């Protein structure tokens, strides 16, 4: 096939390139700049090479934070994906229930991160919070301030409450696109409920599901606001995720070089994961052609 090359098309991309340069590339470059140099103020910089990177990659603190991040992402993905599929399967397909459910589902998505954090922070307080007080009355010694497990549970609950809707809505979109004939054929073929899910619904959902997993992974890996609002990373360091640690390092300890190196490592991890997801997603469809 003969393609006509028209280089004028590049001009169309220019505005976006300019925008991205100012919003992402240039800030990123300053971070790169910090990560390979050391400074003692007064705009005096010394070349540091890969020193900061070595320091980061050898620090327990970094790996602990990253472990927490991975654990958190894994837990919320498991819960949100299975819960999301379950809710989507049970949502009504027609009638007045559809708009009601859709609006209810969309509500949490409209609430800003810090508000979600504050809502749950108050909700869980043992002195005035509805949840905290109720649990206390029931004789459960729930306290996210000094119990790491409780803090984790609260943050996970927050995220599940906030973001399961996204998975639900994406899955629901996949489900409603299945023509009735498929369900009818399944009945004719005597398929069980599980077989209908496994061979009709899941294959139709898998594309949107991958997008949901990708979005939820990236988002949960960047988690910052919720633990920050709830306990500021505590108790101790138990909810200090990479982003919180990064802010502590950069702004709390003013350790700019190390923080910059950490940012870049953090960025590369997300980039790598996203690339893996993207490759898996695009290959899945073409594999069988």
């Amino acid at each position: 096939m003969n393609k006509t090359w028209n280089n004028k098309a590049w001009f169309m991309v220019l505005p976006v390139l300019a925008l991205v340069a100012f919003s992402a590339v240039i800030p990123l470059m300053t971070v790169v700049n910090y990560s390979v140099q050391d400074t003692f103020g007064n705009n005096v910089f010394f070349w540091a090479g890969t020193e900061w990177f070595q320091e980061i990659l050898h620090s327990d603190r970094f790996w602990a934070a990253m472990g927490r991040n991975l654990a958190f992402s894994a837990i919320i993905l498991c819960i949100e994906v299975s819960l999301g599929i379950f809710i989507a399967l049970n949502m009504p397909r027609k009638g007045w229930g559809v708009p009601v459910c859709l609006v209810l589902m969309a509500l949490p998505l409209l609430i800003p991160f810090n508000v979600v954090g504050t809502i749950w922070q108050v909700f869980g307080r043992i002195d005035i919070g509805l949840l905290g007080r109720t649990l206390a009355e029931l004789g459960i010694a729930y306290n996210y301030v000094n119990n790491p497990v409780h803090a984790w549970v609260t943050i996970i609950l927050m995220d599940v409450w906030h973001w399961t809707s996204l998975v639900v809505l994406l899955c629901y979109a996949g489900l409603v696109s299945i023509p009735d004939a498929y369900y009818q054929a399944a009945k004719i073929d005597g398929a069980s409920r599980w077989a209908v899910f496994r061979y009709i619904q899941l294959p139709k959902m898998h594309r949107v599901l991958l997008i949901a997993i990708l979005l939820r992974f990236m988002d949960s890996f960047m988690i910052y606001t919720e633990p920050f609002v709830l306990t500021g990373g505590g108790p101790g360091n138990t909810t200090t995720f990479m982003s919180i640690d990064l802010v502590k390092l950069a702004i709390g300890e003013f350790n700019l070089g190390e923080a910059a190196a950490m940012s870049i490592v953090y960025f590369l991890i997300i980039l790598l994961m996203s690339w893996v997801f993207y490759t898996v997603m695009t290959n899945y469809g073409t594999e069988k052609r």
Partner: protein
Amino acid sequence: MARINLKDIRHAYVDSPVSDDDYALKRVDHVFEDGGAYALLGPSGCGKTTLLNIISGLLHPSEGEIHFGTANVTDLPTEARNIAQVFQFPVVYDTMTVYDNLAFPLRNRGVPEDAVDRRVREIIGMIGLQDRAGRKAQGLTADEKQKISLGRGLARADVNAILFDEPLTVIDPHMKWALRTQLKDLHRRFGHTMVYVTHDQTEALTFADTVVVMYEGEIVQIGTPEELFERPRHTFVGYFIGSPGMNLLPAAMDGGVVRVGGQSFALPGVPQRLSAERIELGIRPEFVRLGREGMPISIAKVEDIGRKKIVHADLEGEAIAVVIDEDAEVPAEPCVAFDPAHLNLYADSWRVETEGRP
């Protein structure tokens, strides 16, 4: 296998039907005999698919009962009715291989694996997809997918009936012939009751022993292809079957004699008086003779369709079609005459049964 008895089935898609117009199926009372090959023929929206889905249990009829043999299955779910159904558009399980697709209805019913294998191999050969057996169904073409759907319908040997809902719509014309012949073969070999829904008269007439013609939610005629052609019970059948359809000319009754324009026809066994708002005389274009005698016509157009020619003409203000041989001459002052043995009289669209004629 069983005979399917539909007792006074009515179905409405609205909740509380008031008039007859609310019913998608007005009243169907019919028996599909065990082992018969039936075609349900009718235009889109006449209730064919509704009737089919009621038989298979995908729809519960608003009124009436369905019996398979002696058992009342009206309230049984689809899975319990042991029916196979093939839909208009291909339904395949994308993530399964072609082989697994065909094995699916058998495995779901706990058929032992060696019996499954034997049956699937047989079906896969029948639909000509042997070389695709291990492929995922996802990447196949539309007509390959439809063949899988067909194959899944045929996979179970012990079904009560196989229902086809316009199954060949997406198949290439040359494949249509082959598959229809195969279905007919299968019917001869296994003797399943088959009901084939279509709006294509050729398909219906070539597939079925008995054609059930539906129109606006009612069965208007049940018969062999010849009966439908020779003695349509309803003007719709006359018009729908045959190409071109039956000529219908407004007529008047005059003491046992039918008048069309200036011409009168004596039909044996016609009642002296008919209390109907509209009386029509029907004659197939094949039985109209074009010549120098009879009623004068003015020709509008002559269509050559190969071995035959269709003459479209005007007879006293009414359109009339005549089929003549390819090499037949059209006279300069053309006239038409009707073969009296093939005249049908219609009162308010329904055929007037005339005694003494077959």
